[in-house]
């Protein structure tokens, strides 16, 4: 029987958000700290809870979005996007929190910045949406064990994003950006005849190791007039000499709710299970919002044979496709995110997006039969519970939550 149950972990160690002060030496606003980078004390502001707790707490004014997580033994590394200065979206960064498992729940430490915007160049405007994979990589004469792919742009609004790489020797170590140019470049004018429109660009990178060495699948979404997901075969053993293999558009066969002309697995995160040869994809499956933020209100998990990457139906045919996506488990929507015990949080969240599957360091499924999904929620613009003096407060209200899907 399919089940969804939430992993109530944040609340276990920080049940009363307003009271979660002190502790730790986090960066500004991070974790349970209210101290700013400059040393001045910031007021911790509650985010809006309509359902289950977040996996960690951070003051309103700091967005916590686009999670990805790898788990090595009893340690988990949760990468996500956050701003480093309160209510300042231009200070975007990729942060990591180290999670430890104890008492049946994961507890996350303080945030540490992995990647910040560059002074100049392709990622000087924003950095966001990162994923990490373990392997063997060399760059500039050094050996590294962890590779990060992240989106970035030189635009302050986050559009026209490219995807670049960074490496580290430990998953929470010092991250070194690879070169000064992105790996995946996106130029909106290349996909628009007029050349005046802006598109999200190359976003949602997701990494899966092919050989536990340097060969890696880079999954990502290219969002222009057309919106497609790709799987790019790359040999990144020597990052000074990247070998680029085939870049394959991912078919959407079997995905029934996207209409006939939308192939995109919005917010797609990919995980591979070598035992079953299934490729799992977490995606945003429904968007009904008509007011800001216009994001999804439901996430779900799909799976398909890995053959979907190579499915080329040749020749004239009237046959049904041989490989397709199928939905597994139940979708996570407002109802699913209702708090199980708190009567004040029975409606759940109406903005649920950017899901990821917690995976092993190589981008593989941890355990067949169940998977933990991390996803982002966000308050609605104009929510009366947000500070009346900040119209943009909802932009800094994202939280990351966790639920387990069994199938």
């Amino acid at each position, binding site marked *: 029987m399919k089940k969804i149950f939430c992993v109530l972990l944040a609340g276990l160690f920080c049940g009363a958000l307003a009271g979660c002060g002190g502790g730790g030496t986090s960066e500004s606003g991070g974790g349970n700290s209210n101290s700013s980078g400059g040393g001045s004390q910031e007021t911790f502001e509650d985010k809006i809870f309509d359902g289950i707790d977040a996996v960690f707490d951070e003051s309103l004014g700091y967005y916590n979005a686009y999670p990805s997580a790898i788990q090595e033994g009893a340690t988990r590394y949760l990468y996500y996007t956050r701003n480093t200065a309160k209510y300042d979206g231009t200070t975007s960064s990729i942060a990591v929190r180290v999670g430890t498992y104890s008492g049946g729940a994961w507890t996350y430490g303080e945030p540490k910045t992995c990647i910040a915007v560059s002074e100049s160049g392709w990622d000087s405007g924003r950095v966001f949406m990162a994923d990490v994979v373990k392997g063997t990589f060399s760059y500039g004469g050094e050996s590294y064990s962890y590779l990060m792919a992240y989106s970035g742009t030189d635009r302050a609004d986050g559009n026209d994003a490219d995807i670049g790489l960074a490496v580290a020797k430990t998953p929470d170590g010092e991250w070194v950006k690879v070169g000064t140019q992105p790996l995946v470049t996106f*130029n909106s*004018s*290349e*996909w*628009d*005849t007029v*050349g005046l429109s802006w598109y999200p660009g190359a976003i949602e990178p997701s990494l899966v190791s*092919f050989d536990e060495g340097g*060969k890696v699948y880079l999954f990502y979404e290219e969002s222009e007039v*057309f919106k*497609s997901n*790709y799987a790019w*075969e*790359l*040999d990144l053993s020597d990052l000074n000499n990247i*070998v*680029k*293999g*085939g*870049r*394959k*558009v991912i*078919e*959407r066969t079997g995905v029934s709710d996207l209409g*006939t*002309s*939308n*192939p995109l697995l919005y917010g797609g995160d990919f995980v591979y299970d070598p035992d079953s040869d299934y490729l799992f994809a977490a995606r945003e499956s429904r968007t009904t919002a008509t007011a800001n933020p216009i994001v999804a209100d439901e996430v779900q998990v799909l799976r398909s044979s890995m053959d979907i990457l*190579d499915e*080329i*139906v*040749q*020749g*004239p*045919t*009237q046959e049904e496709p041989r490989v397709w996506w199928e939905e597994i488990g139940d979708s996570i929507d407002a109802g699913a995110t209702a708090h199980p015990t708190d009567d004040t949080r029975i409606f759940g969240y109406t903005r649920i997006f950017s899901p990821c599957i917690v995976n092993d360091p190589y981008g593989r499924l941890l355990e067949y039969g169940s998977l933990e999904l991390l996803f982002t929620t966000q308050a609605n613009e104009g929510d009366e519970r947000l500070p009346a003096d900040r119209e943009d407060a909802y932009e800094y209200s994202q939280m990351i939550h966790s639920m387990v899907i069994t199938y």
Partner: protein
Amino acid sequence: MKAKIVSVLLAASVLTGACVWGGGAAASAEAALPLVYEAEGKLTESERLTYAPTGETSVSGNALSVKVFLKNTYNYGLPVSFSVTSGDREYTWNKKTGTASGIRYDGAEGENGKAAAALQWNAMGFLEIPYLFYGEILLPFADLENGAGAEITSVSEVFVGITASINSNFASGDTWTADGISLYLFDVSCVTLDDDGNPSGYEEIADFCGGDADDVRLSADAENAEPEGTMRTATEEDYAVFEAFNAAYNAACATAGDMKIIENFEADEAFSGIGSERVASELYDKFYLSGQLSDYSVAAGGVEGNALHYNLDSSVYDAGKNSYAGVHFNFAKEDATDWSGAKGITVYVENTADYLVSFALEIFQYNLETGLLEQYNLNDVGQRYKTVYAYNVETGEEFSYHTQTFTRVPAGFKGWIRIPFSQYAAPAWSTSPTYGNEGVLDFDKNPVVKISITRLFNANQDTEIVLDDIALYYSDFGVGSLFDDSRPSIRECIESGSIA
């Protein structure tokens, strides 16, 4: 089995026509030249060719044999009508379904140079003579008057009607026009068809070879109108053109790797010895335009030699028309119409712009059962995304991507695009009963005779794409082979593949 218009060798036909062309250049100097009907522009009215032998010619056979060569610039088929006068009455072949038998000559001497051909009657009662058809059209007297038949023992006149324009039952949104016609007339005989349709006992009614243009009276159907076409005796240059086309038609397509190249935008080897400006003109006259005024040229570029340069010039854009423009051509080689066993179509493309351009590679299958020219493209019901595959020859990258209706070409792309036939579908409008497209690509049964390259002005104005080597590919391939070499990459297919 290969799908061919010409597929079955006639076993027992005996040909006695007075001027048998083909069989090598040596014959040319001696050959008596036939008559040629030519129409360079679009006819405003249908026209009629009338041959009246001196007096009534007695015949004892059961069918008429009309020997022609057609080089039509526009349509795949030229719709024509046939009738005879016997006694004081004119009888007409006006079947609206089914086929007429023919014998196609491929230029070789003797029986080996002949093969059975099926010519389609269209719904308007006209017989569609295929592009570059050279041979006999066999018209049984039993088929006269829409199958009512007639007892023909003598012939006093033979009529060939050339239709001005026709909205035939072809499955296309285009109005099919009968422009740019060169119809060579060789001879007319009465023959006896046996039970298998094989002709014998030729009784000559007319021998146009070496004849005078005045032997055939040309008239416009409209009252008091002057005919727009002309009748003349063929020249030696006409002969060279005919021979070259006929040789090219019967030559095999070139291959490269796993590709059979069905159009390379080069002069065929058969034309190499001629070199006249006219021949070059004849070759490239096979391309014709429709929709918005657009501009094409066959000039240096592409893979090697010549390529098709297709440009949409915004200065000539007519806002009152649909944005569509197209350049079209029929295949000059019969081999190019045989798509059996192919997995998909591929084309070399260059986009020199720093932004996306797009084009559609539409294919037209001639349904031998229904006589319909069925259109297929990437625009099917629901306008689903289609997947195409690309190999950039400059960067070496291979990738697949989605497109829709029109194939998108990334900025600066230079290389090969492959489109599996699984991505092709009949446009929704063409499957309505009005058009009757069956919507099934069946290359084992039916030939593909025409390609259209179409573009939209509103998305491509002032952009030129360069196309070269339109080919069929025959391999299962992978997109690159870095992680999996069980299937060859696109590059490997092109460089070292083969046609199984």
